[in-house]
Protein backbone atom coordinates (compact mmCIF):
# COMPACT_ATOMS: atom_id res chain seq x y z
CA UNK A 1 0.00 0.00 0.00
CA UNK A 2 1.43 3.37 -1.07
CA UNK A 3 -0.81 5.66 0.94
CA UNK A 4 -2.30 4.85 4.34
CA UNK A 5 -5.33 6.28 6.13
CA UNK A 6 -3.05 7.63 8.85
CA UNK A 7 -0.99 9.51 6.28
CA UNK A 8 -4.07 11.12 4.74
CA UNK A 9 -5.34 12.06 8.20
CA UNK A 10 -1.96 13.52 9.13
CA UNK A 11 -1.70 15.51 5.87
CA UNK A 12 -5.22 16.81 6.50
CA UNK A 13 -4.09 18.02 9.89
CA UNK A 14 -0.95 19.65 8.47
CA UNK A 15 -3.00 21.36 5.76
CA UNK A 16 -5.61 22.32 8.40
CA UNK A 17 -8.54 20.66 6.72
CA UNK A 18 -11.29 18.95 8.66
CA UNK A 19 -12.24 15.56 7.27
CA UNK A 20 -14.75 13.06 8.62
CA UNK A 21 -13.72 9.40 8.94
CA UNK A 22 -15.81 8.64 5.88
CA UNK A 23 -13.99 11.34 3.93
CA UNK A 24 -10.58 10.02 5.01
CA UNK A 25 -11.65 6.55 3.87
CA UNK A 26 -12.94 7.89 0.55
CA UNK A 27 -9.85 10.01 -0.13
CA UNK A 28 -7.28 7.36 0.84
CA UNK A 29 -8.25 5.01 -1.99
CA UNK A 30 -8.36 7.84 -4.54
CA UNK A 31 -5.10 9.43 -3.42
CA UNK A 32 -3.41 6.05 -3.47
CA UNK A 33 -4.46 5.68 -7.09
CA UNK A 34 -3.25 9.20 -7.96
CA UNK A 35 0.12 8.78 -6.21
CA UNK A 36 0.64 5.41 -7.93
CA UNK A 37 0.17 7.20 -11.22
CA UNK A 38 2.67 9.90 -10.23
CA UNK A 39 5.20 7.13 -9.50
CA UNK A 40 5.67 7.06 -13.26
CA UNK A 41 8.12 9.92 -12.73
CA UNK A 42 10.42 7.53 -10.93
CA UNK A 43 10.91 5.40 -14.02
CA UNK A 44 12.81 7.93 -16.14
CA UNK A 45 16.53 8.45 -15.93
CA UNK A 46 16.58 12.16 -15.26
CA UNK A 47 19.86 12.60 -13.40
CA UNK A 48 21.34 14.54 -16.27
CA UNK A 49 18.42 16.92 -16.70
CA UNK A 50 18.51 20.25 -14.95
CA UNK A 51 15.19 21.72 -13.88
CA UNK A 52 14.11 25.04 -15.40
CA UNK A 53 14.85 28.01 -13.19
CA UNK A 54 13.72 31.58 -13.50
CA UNK A 55 16.09 34.45 -12.99
CA UNK A 56 15.03 38.00 -12.34
CA UNK A 57 17.14 40.77 -10.85
CA UNK A 58 15.84 42.83 -7.96
CA UNK A 59 16.46 45.94 -10.01
CA UNK A 60 13.83 44.76 -12.49
CA UNK A 61 11.10 44.63 -9.88
CA UNK A 62 8.76 47.50 -9.10
CA UNK A 63 9.31 49.50 -5.93
CA UNK A 64 7.81 47.89 -2.88
CA UNK A 65 5.56 50.70 -1.70
CA UNK A 66 2.24 50.28 0.07
CA UNK A 67 -0.86 51.21 -1.85
CA UNK A 68 -3.96 52.69 -0.29
CA UNK A 69 -7.22 51.09 -1.23
CA UNK A 70 -9.97 53.52 -0.47
CA UNK A 71 -13.42 52.37 0.53
CA UNK A 72 -12.27 48.83 1.04
CA UNK A 73 -15.13 46.64 2.09
CA UNK A 74 -13.75 43.76 4.08
CA UNK A 75 -15.55 40.49 3.64
CA UNK A 76 -16.15 40.07 7.36
CA UNK A 77 -18.55 41.64 9.80
CA UNK A 78 -16.68 40.39 12.86
CA UNK A 79 -14.84 43.51 13.95
CA UNK A 80 -14.10 45.41 17.12
CA UNK A 81 -12.62 48.88 17.63
CA UNK A 82 -11.41 49.08 14.04
CA UNK A 83 -9.79 45.64 14.16
CA UNK A 84 -10.80 42.38 12.55
CA UNK A 85 -11.71 39.74 15.10
CA UNK A 86 -10.01 36.36 14.92
CA UNK A 87 -10.25 33.23 17.06
CA UNK A 88 -8.36 33.22 20.36
CA UNK A 89 -4.76 32.02 20.32
CA UNK A 90 -4.98 29.57 23.22
Amino acid sequence: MVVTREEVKHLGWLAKIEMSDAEVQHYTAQIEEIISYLNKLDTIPLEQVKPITMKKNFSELRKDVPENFEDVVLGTEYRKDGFVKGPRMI
Partner: protein
Amino acid sequence: MALYTLPAEQVVKGIKSGELSVEEYISHLFERIERVEPKINAFVTLHKEEALNRARILGKKIGEGKQSGPLAGVAFSIKDNICTKGMKTSCASKMLESYIPAYDATVIKRLLAADAIIIGKANLDEFAMGSTTEFSRYGPTRNPWDTRRVSGGSSGGSAASVAAFECTASLGSDTGGSVRCPASFCSVVGLKPTYGLVSRFGLVSYANSLEQIGPIGRTVSDVVSFLNVIAGPDENDHTTTRANKPSYSLKERKGLRVGLVKEFIEGADPAVSKIIYEAADTLAKQECYCEEVSLPSVEYALASYYTIATAEASSNLARYDNIRYGFDMNPEGYEWNSYFVRARGNFGEEAKRRIIVGSYVLSSGYYGKYYMKAHQARSLLKREMESLFNRYDALVGPTMPVLPFKIGERIDDPLKMYLVDIDTVVANLTGMPAISVPAGFADGLPVGLQIMADQFAEQTLVDVAYLFEQTAKVQRSPEL
Protein backbone atom coordinates in the same frame (compact mmCIF):
# COMPACT_ATOMS: atom_id res chain seq x y z
CA MET B 1 -29.53 38.51 -38.15
CA ALA B 2 -30.03 38.79 -34.38
CA LEU B 3 -27.86 41.39 -32.67
CA TYR B 4 -26.45 38.89 -30.19
CA THR B 5 -24.73 36.98 -32.99
CA LEU B 6 -22.57 39.94 -34.06
CA PRO B 7 -18.80 39.47 -33.94
CA ALA B 8 -16.74 42.01 -31.96
CA GLU B 9 -15.55 43.88 -35.03
CA GLN B 10 -19.09 44.58 -36.23
CA VAL B 11 -20.29 45.59 -32.77
CA VAL B 12 -17.47 48.13 -32.49
CA LYS B 13 -18.07 49.42 -36.01
CA GLY B 14 -21.82 49.76 -35.49
CA ILE B 15 -21.43 51.49 -32.14
CA LYS B 16 -18.71 53.87 -33.26
CA SER B 17 -20.65 54.90 -36.34
CA GLY B 18 -23.81 55.44 -34.31
CA GLU B 19 -25.75 52.81 -36.28
CA LEU B 20 -26.03 50.62 -33.19
CA SER B 21 -27.10 51.90 -29.78
CA VAL B 22 -24.90 50.47 -27.02
CA GLU B 23 -27.78 50.39 -24.58
CA GLU B 24 -30.07 48.64 -27.01
CA TYR B 25 -27.37 46.12 -27.82
CA ILE B 26 -26.69 45.32 -24.16
CA SER B 27 -30.43 45.07 -23.34
CA HIS B 28 -30.83 42.74 -26.28
CA LEU B 29 -28.03 40.52 -24.93
CA PHE B 30 -29.69 40.34 -21.52
CA GLU B 31 -32.93 39.21 -23.16
CA ARG B 32 -30.96 36.43 -24.78
CA ILE B 33 -29.36 35.56 -21.42
CA GLU B 34 -32.74 35.38 -19.70
CA ARG B 35 -33.91 32.98 -22.38
CA VAL B 36 -30.99 30.55 -22.49
CA GLU B 37 -29.27 30.84 -19.10
CA PRO B 38 -31.71 28.49 -17.27
CA LYS B 39 -30.63 25.73 -19.67
CA ILE B 40 -26.87 26.44 -19.49
CA ASN B 41 -25.96 27.84 -16.05
CA ALA B 42 -22.91 29.68 -17.40
CA PHE B 43 -22.98 32.50 -14.86
CA VAL B 44 -22.31 32.77 -11.16
CA THR B 45 -23.46 36.41 -11.09
CA LEU B 46 -24.94 38.71 -13.72
CA HIS B 47 -24.34 42.46 -13.63
CA LYS B 48 -27.16 43.88 -15.70
CA GLU B 49 -27.47 47.26 -14.00
CA GLU B 50 -23.73 47.97 -14.12
CA ALA B 51 -23.60 46.87 -17.77
CA LEU B 52 -26.50 49.11 -18.77
CA ASN B 53 -24.97 51.95 -16.83
CA ARG B 54 -21.65 51.61 -18.64
CA ALA B 55 -23.53 51.32 -21.92
CA ARG B 56 -25.28 54.66 -21.23
CA ILE B 57 -21.97 56.36 -20.35
CA LEU B 58 -20.30 54.97 -23.47
CA GLY B 59 -23.28 55.95 -25.64
CA LYS B 60 -23.10 59.48 -24.30
CA LYS B 61 -19.36 59.65 -24.92
CA ILE B 62 -19.79 58.54 -28.52
CA GLY B 63 -22.75 60.88 -28.99
CA GLU B 64 -20.56 63.77 -27.94
CA GLY B 65 -18.05 62.82 -30.59
CA LYS B 66 -15.39 61.74 -28.08
CA GLN B 67 -12.85 59.04 -28.79
CA SER B 68 -13.85 55.48 -27.75
CA GLY B 69 -11.74 52.37 -27.18
CA PRO B 70 -10.94 49.50 -29.58
CA LEU B 71 -13.57 47.24 -27.97
CA ALA B 72 -16.29 49.86 -27.62
CA GLY B 73 -19.49 48.18 -26.43
CA VAL B 74 -18.28 44.60 -26.78
CA ALA B 75 -19.88 42.49 -24.04
CA PHE B 76 -17.77 39.94 -22.23
CA SER B 77 -17.99 37.55 -19.29
CA ILE B 78 -15.18 36.90 -16.82
CA LYS B 79 -14.28 33.67 -15.11
CA ASP B 80 -15.11 34.14 -11.44
CA ASN B 81 -11.50 33.68 -10.31
CA ILE B 82 -10.41 37.00 -11.87
CA CYS B 83 -10.78 39.97 -9.53
CA THR B 84 -13.32 42.64 -10.36
CA LYS B 85 -13.52 45.70 -8.15
CA GLY B 86 -16.80 45.82 -6.28
CA MET B 87 -18.07 42.61 -7.90
CA LYS B 88 -18.12 39.37 -5.97
CA THR B 89 -15.30 37.02 -7.01
CA SER B 90 -16.20 33.64 -5.53
CA CYS B 91 -13.99 31.13 -7.38
CA ALA B 92 -17.18 29.03 -7.20
CA SER B 93 -16.15 28.19 -3.66
CA LYS B 94 -17.80 28.46 -0.27
CA MET B 95 -14.41 29.72 0.94
CA LEU B 96 -14.81 32.99 -1.02
CA GLU B 97 -18.59 33.11 -0.91
CA SER B 98 -18.73 36.80 0.01
CA TYR B 99 -15.37 38.06 -1.24
CA ILE B 100 -15.61 41.44 -2.98
CA PRO B 101 -12.20 42.52 -4.36
CA ALA B 102 -10.94 46.04 -3.69
CA TYR B 103 -9.20 46.18 -7.06
CA ASP B 104 -9.51 45.13 -10.69
CA ALA B 105 -7.15 42.58 -12.22
CA THR B 106 -4.82 44.17 -14.79
CA VAL B 107 -6.65 42.42 -17.64
CA ILE B 108 -9.95 43.89 -16.44
CA LYS B 109 -8.49 47.39 -16.18
CA ARG B 110 -7.25 47.10 -19.76
CA LEU B 111 -10.55 45.80 -21.12
CA LEU B 112 -12.54 48.50 -19.35
CA ALA B 113 -10.13 51.12 -20.66
CA ALA B 114 -10.82 49.71 -24.14
CA ASP B 115 -14.56 50.32 -23.46
CA ALA B 116 -15.59 46.66 -23.36
CA ILE B 117 -18.59 45.93 -21.11
CA ILE B 118 -18.74 43.35 -18.32
CA ILE B 119 -21.89 41.20 -18.47
CA GLY B 120 -21.24 38.91 -15.54
CA LYS B 121 -18.94 36.48 -13.75
CA ALA B 122 -18.74 33.03 -15.27
CA ASN B 123 -18.96 29.62 -13.62
CA LEU B 124 -15.90 27.42 -13.09
CA ASP B 125 -14.65 24.41 -11.18
CA GLU B 126 -13.85 25.53 -7.64
CA PHE B 127 -10.57 27.48 -7.73
CA ALA B 128 -10.21 26.38 -11.38
CA MET B 129 -9.54 22.79 -10.35
CA GLY B 130 -11.31 20.49 -12.76
CA SER B 131 -12.01 19.70 -16.38
CA THR B 132 -15.82 19.79 -16.46
CA THR B 133 -17.14 22.66 -14.28
CA GLU B 134 -18.91 20.00 -12.20
CA PHE B 135 -16.85 20.94 -9.14
CA SER B 136 -18.58 24.30 -8.86
CA ARG B 137 -20.53 25.22 -5.77
CA TYR B 138 -23.11 26.70 -8.13
CA GLY B 139 -23.80 23.49 -10.04
CA PRO B 140 -22.38 22.33 -13.37
CA THR B 141 -22.43 24.44 -16.53
CA ARG B 142 -24.18 22.54 -19.29
CA ASN B 143 -22.86 22.12 -22.81
CA PRO B 144 -24.88 24.28 -25.24
CA TRP B 145 -24.57 21.56 -27.90
CA ASP B 146 -26.09 18.91 -25.65
CA THR B 147 -27.25 20.07 -22.24
CA ARG B 148 -26.91 16.57 -20.76
CA ARG B 149 -23.17 16.82 -21.26
CA VAL B 150 -20.36 18.73 -19.57
CA SER B 151 -19.16 22.05 -20.93
CA GLY B 152 -15.54 21.20 -20.17
CA GLY B 153 -13.53 23.09 -17.63
CA SER B 154 -12.44 24.70 -15.67
CA SER B 155 -13.52 27.82 -17.62
CA GLY B 156 -16.78 26.06 -18.56
CA GLY B 157 -19.00 29.07 -17.84
CA SER B 158 -16.77 31.28 -19.98
CA ALA B 159 -16.85 28.97 -23.01
CA ALA B 160 -20.54 28.10 -22.67
CA SER B 161 -21.57 31.77 -22.33
CA VAL B 162 -19.78 32.52 -25.61
CA ALA B 163 -21.07 29.40 -27.39
CA ALA B 164 -24.64 30.13 -26.27
CA PHE B 165 -24.40 33.73 -27.59
CA GLU B 166 -24.84 35.22 -24.12
CA CYS B 167 -21.84 37.49 -24.79
CA THR B 168 -19.25 38.06 -27.51
CA ALA B 169 -16.15 36.90 -25.68
CA SER B 170 -14.88 35.85 -22.29
CA LEU B 171 -11.75 35.67 -20.18
CA GLY B 172 -10.78 32.32 -18.74
CA SER B 173 -7.67 31.06 -17.04
CA ASP B 174 -5.64 28.09 -18.24
CA THR B 175 -3.49 26.15 -15.78
CA GLY B 176 -3.56 22.76 -17.49
CA GLY B 177 -6.00 23.34 -20.32
CA SER B 178 -8.82 25.21 -18.59
CA VAL B 179 -9.39 27.62 -21.49
CA ARG B 180 -8.80 25.17 -24.33
CA CYS B 181 -10.76 22.21 -22.93
CA PRO B 182 -14.12 24.02 -22.64
CA ALA B 183 -13.43 25.86 -25.91
CA SER B 184 -13.06 22.47 -27.58
CA PHE B 185 -16.14 20.95 -25.90
CA CYS B 186 -18.31 24.00 -26.72
CA SER B 187 -16.97 24.56 -30.27
CA VAL B 188 -15.50 28.01 -29.71
CA VAL B 189 -11.96 29.41 -29.95
CA GLY B 190 -9.82 29.53 -26.79
CA LEU B 191 -6.22 30.69 -26.47
CA LYS B 192 -3.64 30.12 -23.77
CA PRO B 193 -0.92 32.73 -24.26
CA THR B 194 2.80 32.20 -23.70
CA TYR B 195 3.68 32.30 -20.00
CA GLY B 196 4.54 35.92 -19.28
CA LEU B 197 2.59 37.51 -22.15
CA VAL B 198 -0.50 38.38 -20.09
CA SER B 199 -0.47 39.70 -16.53
CA ARG B 200 -1.76 37.40 -13.80
CA PHE B 201 -2.21 40.27 -11.36
CA GLY B 202 -5.69 39.82 -9.92
CA LEU B 203 -6.05 36.19 -10.98
CA VAL B 204 -6.71 34.07 -7.90
CA SER B 205 -3.68 31.77 -7.88
CA TYR B 206 -3.98 28.04 -8.29
CA ALA B 207 -0.59 27.04 -9.77
CA ASN B 208 1.42 30.17 -10.54
CA SER B 209 4.17 28.63 -12.64
CA LEU B 210 1.68 27.13 -15.08
CA GLU B 211 -1.25 29.47 -15.52
CA GLN B 212 -2.17 32.29 -17.84
CA ILE B 213 -5.36 34.26 -18.44
CA GLY B 214 -6.63 33.69 -21.97
CA PRO B 215 -9.48 34.91 -24.20
CA ILE B 216 -12.36 32.82 -25.53
CA GLY B 217 -14.43 33.89 -28.55
CA ARG B 218 -16.52 32.48 -31.36
CA THR B 219 -13.93 33.41 -33.99
CA VAL B 220 -10.14 33.72 -34.19
CA SER B 221 -10.70 37.38 -34.99
CA ASP B 222 -12.59 38.04 -31.72
CA VAL B 223 -9.93 36.23 -29.71
CA VAL B 224 -7.17 38.29 -31.34
CA SER B 225 -9.06 41.54 -30.58
CA PHE B 226 -9.14 40.63 -26.91
CA LEU B 227 -5.55 39.36 -26.82
CA ASN B 228 -4.30 42.62 -28.31
CA VAL B 229 -5.88 44.54 -25.44
CA ILE B 230 -4.82 42.31 -22.53
CA ALA B 231 -1.28 41.34 -23.61
CA GLY B 232 1.82 43.24 -22.59
CA PRO B 233 4.05 43.94 -19.59
CA ASP B 234 2.67 44.80 -16.16
CA GLU B 235 4.77 45.96 -13.25
CA ASN B 236 2.38 44.19 -10.87
CA ASP B 237 3.31 40.78 -12.32
CA HIS B 238 7.05 40.33 -12.45
CA THR B 239 6.69 37.21 -14.61
CA THR B 240 5.43 39.29 -17.52
CA THR B 241 8.14 39.99 -20.05
CA ARG B 242 9.55 43.45 -20.42
CA ALA B 243 9.08 43.47 -24.17
CA ASN B 244 6.78 46.10 -25.64
CA LYS B 245 3.08 45.52 -26.00
CA PRO B 246 2.61 43.21 -28.97
CA SER B 247 -0.03 43.51 -31.65
CA TYR B 248 -1.31 40.53 -33.61
CA SER B 249 -3.13 40.62 -36.92
CA LEU B 250 -5.08 38.33 -39.22
CA LYS B 251 -3.39 37.55 -42.47
CA GLU B 252 -3.47 34.83 -45.05
CA ARG B 253 -0.26 32.89 -44.74
CA LYS B 254 0.45 29.71 -46.61
CA GLY B 255 3.33 27.27 -46.78
CA LEU B 256 3.52 26.75 -43.01
CA ARG B 257 5.35 23.72 -41.64
CA VAL B 258 3.02 21.77 -39.38
CA GLY B 259 3.82 18.72 -37.23
CA LEU B 260 1.02 16.33 -36.33
CA VAL B 261 1.81 14.97 -32.85
CA LYS B 262 1.59 11.19 -33.10
CA GLU B 263 1.16 10.55 -29.38
CA PHE B 264 -1.83 12.89 -29.16
CA ILE B 265 -3.61 11.26 -32.10
CA GLU B 266 -2.93 7.70 -31.01
CA GLY B 267 -4.20 8.36 -27.51
CA ALA B 268 -7.48 9.87 -28.68
CA ASP B 269 -10.91 8.36 -29.21
CA PRO B 270 -11.01 7.16 -32.89
CA ALA B 271 -13.94 9.49 -33.62
CA VAL B 272 -11.76 12.42 -32.48
CA SER B 273 -8.65 11.25 -34.38
CA LYS B 274 -10.65 11.00 -37.59
CA ILE B 275 -11.63 14.69 -37.39
CA ILE B 276 -8.04 15.68 -36.59
CA TYR B 277 -6.67 13.79 -39.61
CA GLU B 278 -9.26 15.60 -41.73
CA ALA B 279 -8.11 18.89 -40.20
CA ALA B 280 -4.51 18.07 -41.17
CA ASP B 281 -5.72 17.37 -44.71
CA THR B 282 -7.46 20.74 -44.74
CA LEU B 283 -4.20 22.45 -43.79
CA ALA B 284 -2.24 20.41 -46.33
CA LYS B 285 -4.63 21.58 -49.06
CA GLN B 286 -3.73 25.15 -48.08
CA GLU B 287 -0.13 24.50 -49.05
CA CYS B 288 0.94 23.68 -45.50
CA TYR B 289 3.62 21.05 -45.22
CA CYS B 290 2.19 18.49 -42.76
CA GLU B 291 3.88 15.44 -41.35
CA GLU B 292 3.65 13.24 -38.29
CA VAL B 293 6.10 13.98 -35.46
CA SER B 294 6.83 12.30 -32.16
CA LEU B 295 7.02 13.79 -28.67
CA PRO B 296 8.12 10.82 -26.54
CA SER B 297 8.35 12.70 -23.22
CA VAL B 298 4.63 13.34 -23.35
CA GLU B 299 4.34 10.05 -21.48
CA TYR B 300 5.49 11.84 -18.33
CA ALA B 301 3.67 15.11 -18.92
CA LEU B 302 0.56 14.36 -16.92
CA ALA B 303 2.43 13.00 -13.89
CA SER B 304 4.70 16.02 -14.00
CA TYR B 305 1.75 18.38 -14.33
CA TYR B 306 -0.30 16.91 -11.48
CA THR B 307 2.72 16.89 -9.19
CA ILE B 308 3.58 20.55 -9.83
CA ALA B 309 -0.03 21.77 -9.96
CA THR B 310 -1.10 20.10 -6.72
CA ALA B 311 2.12 21.17 -4.96
CA GLU B 312 1.56 24.79 -5.92
CA ALA B 313 -2.16 24.52 -5.13
CA SER B 314 -1.54 23.23 -1.63
CA SER B 315 0.74 26.16 -1.00
CA ASN B 316 -1.58 28.76 -2.58
CA LEU B 317 -4.69 27.54 -0.81
CA ALA B 318 -2.92 27.68 2.55
CA ARG B 319 -3.73 31.41 2.70
CA TYR B 320 -7.47 30.98 3.18
CA ASP B 321 -8.06 31.34 6.89
CA ASN B 322 -11.53 32.97 6.67
CA ILE B 323 -10.51 35.83 8.93
CA ARG B 324 -10.46 38.96 6.73
CA TYR B 325 -12.73 37.63 4.02
CA GLY B 326 -14.49 34.39 3.20
CA PHE B 327 -17.86 33.20 4.41
CA ASP B 328 -19.89 33.91 7.51
CA MET B 329 -18.42 31.99 10.44
CA ASN B 330 -18.14 33.68 13.82
CA PRO B 331 -14.64 33.24 15.35
CA GLU B 332 -16.11 33.71 18.84
CA GLY B 333 -15.51 30.71 21.09
CA TYR B 334 -12.98 29.04 18.78
CA GLU B 335 -9.32 28.38 19.44
CA TRP B 336 -7.00 29.35 16.52
CA ASN B 337 -6.33 25.89 15.09
CA SER B 338 -9.82 24.51 15.57
CA TYR B 339 -11.26 27.54 13.77
CA PHE B 340 -8.99 27.08 10.74
CA VAL B 341 -9.59 23.37 10.54
CA ARG B 342 -13.36 23.86 10.71
CA ALA B 343 -13.43 26.81 8.27
CA ARG B 344 -11.10 25.14 5.76
CA GLY B 345 -13.19 21.98 5.88
CA ASN B 346 -15.49 23.98 3.58
CA PHE B 347 -13.23 23.59 0.59
CA GLY B 348 -14.99 21.40 -1.97
CA GLU B 349 -14.09 17.81 -2.68
CA GLU B 350 -11.61 18.35 -5.53
CA ALA B 351 -9.83 21.26 -3.87
CA LYS B 352 -9.36 19.17 -0.71
CA ARG B 353 -8.06 16.25 -2.75
CA ARG B 354 -5.50 18.44 -4.51
CA ILE B 355 -4.38 20.04 -1.25
CA ILE B 356 -3.74 16.57 0.21
CA VAL B 357 -1.96 15.27 -2.91
CA GLY B 358 0.11 18.47 -3.03
CA SER B 359 1.04 18.16 0.62
CA TYR B 360 1.99 14.54 0.01
CA VAL B 361 4.36 15.23 -2.90
CA LEU B 362 5.99 18.07 -0.99
CA SER B 363 6.49 16.03 2.19
CA SER B 364 10.09 15.67 3.29
CA GLY B 365 11.35 12.37 1.99
CA TYR B 366 9.10 12.48 -1.07
CA TYR B 367 10.23 15.83 -2.42
CA GLY B 368 13.05 14.38 -4.54
CA LYS B 369 10.90 11.50 -5.70
CA TYR B 370 8.04 13.62 -7.02
CA TYR B 371 8.46 17.39 -7.07
CA MET B 372 12.09 17.47 -8.22
CA LYS B 373 11.50 14.74 -10.82
CA ALA B 374 8.42 16.56 -12.08
CA HIS B 375 10.52 19.63 -12.75
CA GLN B 376 13.16 17.58 -14.51
CA ALA B 377 10.50 15.96 -16.69
CA ARG B 378 9.18 19.43 -17.43
CA SER B 379 12.63 20.50 -18.55
CA LEU B 380 13.00 17.42 -20.76
CA LEU B 381 9.64 18.09 -22.39
CA LYS B 382 10.58 21.70 -23.06
CA ARG B 383 13.82 20.62 -24.70
CA GLU B 384 11.95 18.21 -26.98
CA MET B 385 9.41 20.87 -27.93
CA GLU B 386 12.10 23.43 -28.67
CA SER B 387 13.86 21.04 -30.99
CA LEU B 388 10.57 20.38 -32.82
CA PHE B 389 10.00 24.11 -33.24
CA ASN B 390 13.35 24.36 -35.00
CA ARG B 391 11.76 22.31 -37.74
CA TYR B 392 8.07 23.22 -37.58
CA ASP B 393 6.10 26.44 -37.24
CA ALA B 394 3.34 24.74 -35.35
CA LEU B 395 2.34 21.42 -33.80
CA VAL B 396 -1.23 20.19 -34.02
CA GLY B 397 -3.40 17.48 -32.51
CA PRO B 398 -6.71 17.11 -30.74
CA THR B 399 -7.36 19.52 -27.85
CA MET B 400 -9.27 16.84 -25.97
CA PRO B 401 -8.76 13.10 -26.47
CA VAL B 402 -12.47 12.44 -25.88
CA LEU B 403 -15.85 13.86 -26.88
CA PRO B 404 -17.80 15.86 -24.28
CA PHE B 405 -19.10 13.25 -21.87
CA LYS B 406 -22.26 13.09 -19.79
CA ILE B 407 -22.55 15.10 -16.58
CA GLY B 408 -21.67 12.83 -13.65
CA GLU B 409 -19.91 10.23 -15.81
CA ARG B 410 -16.38 10.71 -14.44
CA ILE B 411 -16.90 12.69 -11.28
CA ASP B 412 -16.26 9.77 -8.92
CA ASP B 413 -13.02 8.75 -10.57
CA PRO B 414 -10.46 11.56 -10.16
CA LEU B 415 -7.62 9.85 -12.02
CA LYS B 416 -9.86 9.12 -15.01
CA MET B 417 -10.85 12.79 -14.96
CA TYR B 418 -7.19 13.93 -14.84
CA LEU B 419 -6.33 11.76 -17.86
CA VAL B 420 -8.41 13.91 -20.23
CA ASP B 421 -5.89 16.74 -19.72
CA ILE B 422 -3.10 14.78 -21.41
CA ASP B 423 -2.98 16.90 -24.59
CA THR B 424 -3.33 20.32 -22.99
CA VAL B 425 -0.86 20.23 -20.07
CA VAL B 426 2.16 20.22 -22.41
CA ALA B 427 1.69 23.91 -23.27
CA ASN B 428 1.46 24.84 -19.58
CA LEU B 429 4.51 22.84 -18.56
CA THR B 430 6.61 24.35 -21.36
CA GLY B 431 5.12 27.86 -21.14
CA MET B 432 4.31 27.74 -24.85
CA PRO B 433 1.17 29.22 -26.42
CA ALA B 434 -1.68 27.03 -27.65
CA ILE B 435 -5.11 27.58 -29.15
CA SER B 436 -8.16 25.40 -29.62
CA VAL B 437 -10.16 25.98 -32.80
CA PRO B 438 -13.40 24.17 -33.73
CA ALA B 439 -12.46 21.30 -36.05
CA GLY B 440 -15.80 19.62 -36.65
CA PHE B 441 -18.31 17.27 -35.07
CA ALA B 442 -18.39 13.56 -34.26
CA ASP B 443 -21.80 12.11 -33.38
CA GLY B 444 -23.08 15.69 -33.21
CA LEU B 445 -20.50 16.66 -30.56
CA PRO B 446 -17.73 19.24 -30.99
CA VAL B 447 -14.08 18.36 -31.59
CA GLY B 448 -11.35 20.97 -31.18
CA LEU B 449 -8.06 21.21 -33.05
CA GLN B 450 -5.21 22.24 -30.79
CA ILE B 451 -2.40 24.26 -32.35
CA MET B 452 0.81 24.91 -30.41
CA ALA B 453 3.66 27.27 -31.30
CA ASP B 454 7.01 28.30 -29.89
CA GLN B 455 7.25 30.78 -27.01
CA PHE B 456 5.93 34.22 -27.95
CA ALA B 457 5.08 32.98 -31.45
CA GLU B 458 1.41 33.93 -30.99
CA GLN B 459 1.37 35.44 -34.47
CA THR B 460 2.21 32.03 -36.00
CA LEU B 461 -0.45 30.44 -33.81
CA VAL B 462 -3.01 32.95 -35.06
CA ASP B 463 -1.87 32.45 -38.68
CA VAL B 464 -2.47 28.69 -38.55
CA ALA B 465 -5.72 29.05 -36.60
CA TYR B 466 -7.08 31.69 -38.99
CA LEU B 467 -6.08 29.73 -42.08
CA PHE B 468 -7.81 26.65 -40.71
CA GLU B 469 -10.91 28.52 -39.59
CA GLN B 470 -11.35 30.25 -42.94
CA THR B 471 -11.00 26.98 -44.84
CA ALA B 472 -12.84 24.53 -42.58
CA LYS B 473 -15.83 26.79 -41.82
CA VAL B 474 -17.08 24.79 -38.84
CA GLN B 475 -20.59 25.57 -37.60
CA ARG B 476 -20.66 27.82 -34.52
CA SER B 477 -24.29 28.12 -33.45
CA PRO B 478 -25.95 25.46 -31.32
CA GLU B 479 -29.74 25.19 -31.23
CA LEU B 480 -31.01 26.30 -27.89
